[in-house]
């Protein structure tokens, strides 16, 4: 046996080089070009090398043969199919006619009708002419001398019948055409109605009820501009409702009767109060102060009293202002709240208006006075004015008194106790406006001597 174990000898001769695609039972695919590439799982692997070489050559040749045969069979099959189709009798090729017919049918019906009408119009136009010719022909035949009388008699003029038939035919054609037009018009009208009804279908979007006001209903088929307008209406309705709700919460409080307050403030611009005495006094005004102005906590009142005592101990005067309020002359706000404090503010405003004309000229000068500006520029003022708690007494430094506490102003000599406004920011006052309000309020209640002293 030839030794084909060497690699160089394992290869087939150049002219016989083959490539055998081997697929093992495991599914693995191999491309075997030489004996040493035969996988171990191949059944011929255990055969003698000569036998493996023979198998390889036969298999490669067989594969080529099979592929060639497959191609030949495929060609033959294709040709047979084409030949069979070509030899198929015309009766079996009805599908082609059907297809052609469908192409014609697929044309727009309107085009067909229009075409048919165009073709039939000349024929219809010739109908009277044809009728006349038929009548003439019948008449000539009937008048022929060789025509028997019976025959002539039997030959009906046919004019009436022909005309009648033609008239009937024309009437039928016209009626059919009219019916077709009416049908088409009805179909178009129904289609249009469907489109319109669909477009106008009130596909309502559920909108929750709004108290005391009907909300506009949003329709699904609205135009964008309409939807936008509706949205604006909804927003307006929401605002109205929310306003109503807010206003419902702001039920004006019943004002306690303070018969003497306005007169007292008008008559006594500067109210020097002994808080401790006021807290214990049975005087109606003191009672009103305790119930409405003074903090309910006795501890706070005592603290205030201590503060005032401290002020007085250093030679100052403790002034008590029961209420502070915005002044229309200073503020341009329209959001005046009808709260109790606001009512009191109106009282104070009236008081200021009564008193203020006497000091307004000086007020203008004071507003720009360096000392006043110094007072207003201090953090103390800001802290006081921005203090959020209601009814918490604030003290306003006035004069050149020594501060009672380290955080007091160095220029403070006198203090004015006054409750804080409910909420300055809620009524639209900024810091400078509040300062102006306080300044006017203070100035309105200070005698000219004090104003001059401050200046």
């Amino acid at each position, binding site marked *: 046996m030839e030794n084909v174990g060497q690699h160089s000898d394992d290869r087939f001769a150049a002219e016989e080089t083959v490539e055998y695609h*081997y697929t093992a039972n495991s599914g693995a695919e191999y491309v075997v070009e030489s004996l040493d590439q035969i996988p171990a799982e191949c059944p011929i692997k255990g055969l003698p090398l000569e*036998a493996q070489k*023979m*198998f390889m*050559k*036969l298999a490669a040749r*067989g*594969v080529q043969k099979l592929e060639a045969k497959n191609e030949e069979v495929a060609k033959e099959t294709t040709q047979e199919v084409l030949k069979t189709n070509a030899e198929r009798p015309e009766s079996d090729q009805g599908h082609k006619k059907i297809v052609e017919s469908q192409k014609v049918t697929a044309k727009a019906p309107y085009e067909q009708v229009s075409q048919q009408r165009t073709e039939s119009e000349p024929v219809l136009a010739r109908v009277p002419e044809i009728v006349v010719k038929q009548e003439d022909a019948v008449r000539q035949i009937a008048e022929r001398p060789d025509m028997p009388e019976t025959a002539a008699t039997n030959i009906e003029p046919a004019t009436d019948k022909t005309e009648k038939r033609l008239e009937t035919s024309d009437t039928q054609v016209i009626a059919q055409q009219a019916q077709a037009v009416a049908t088409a018009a009805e179909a178009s009208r129904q289609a249009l109605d469907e489109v319109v009804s669909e477009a106008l279908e009130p596909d309502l979007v559920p909108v929750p009820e709004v108290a005391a006001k009907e909300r506009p209903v949003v329709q699904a088929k609205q135009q964008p501009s309409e939807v936008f307008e509706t949205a604006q209406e909804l927003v307006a309705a929401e605002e109205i409702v929310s306003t109503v709700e807010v206003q419902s919460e702001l039920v004006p409080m019943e004002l306690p009767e303070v018969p003497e307050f306005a007169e007292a403030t008008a008559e006594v611009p500067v109210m020097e109060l002994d808080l401790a005495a006021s807290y214990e006094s049975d005087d109606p005004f003191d009672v009103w102060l305790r119930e409405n102005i003074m903090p309910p906590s006795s501890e706070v009142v005592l603290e205030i009293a201590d503060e005032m005592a401290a002020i007085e101990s250093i030679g100052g005067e403790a002034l008590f202002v029961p209420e502070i309020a915005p002044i229309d002359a200073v503020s341009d706000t329209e959001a005046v709240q009808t709260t109790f404090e606001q009512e009191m503010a109106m009282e104070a405003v009236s008081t200021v208006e009564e008193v203020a004309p006497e000091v307004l000229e000086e007020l203008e000068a004071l507003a720009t006075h360096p000392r006043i500006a110094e007072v207003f520029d201090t953090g103390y003022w800001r802290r006081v004015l921005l203090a959020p708690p209601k009814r918490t007494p604030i003290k306003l430094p006035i004069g050149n008194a020594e501060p009672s506490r380290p955080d007091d102003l160095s220029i403070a000599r006198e203090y004015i106790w006054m409750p804080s406004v409910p909420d300055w920011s809620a009524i639209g006052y900024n810091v400078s406006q509040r300062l102006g309000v306080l300044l006017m309020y203070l100035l309105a209640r200070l005698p000219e001597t004090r104003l001059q002293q401050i200046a």
Partner: protein
Amino acid sequence: MSNEQLGRNEEHEGVHYLRLLGLEHLADREVAGKNGRFLAKDFLDVCGQHARPVLVGFEDMSSDDPEYESTKDFLTHYIGQILESHPQA
């Protein structure tokens, strides 16, 4: 590839190759395979993926080929041995 494709409508493919190798007498012999029993003439249904190309290649050989007889002898011996070595039903 079916018999029809091979143009042998009149003869079974397996029988054709067995006859080509002089083993047609084994055609109807029942052979025990791994997946059950089968007739010898249906061996291509079992190992046709590998055996068919070899047999087709042998069929394509010319009898004038100097290796024709030796190849035929080997294939006859090899396939006959496989078919006859399995227990007969």
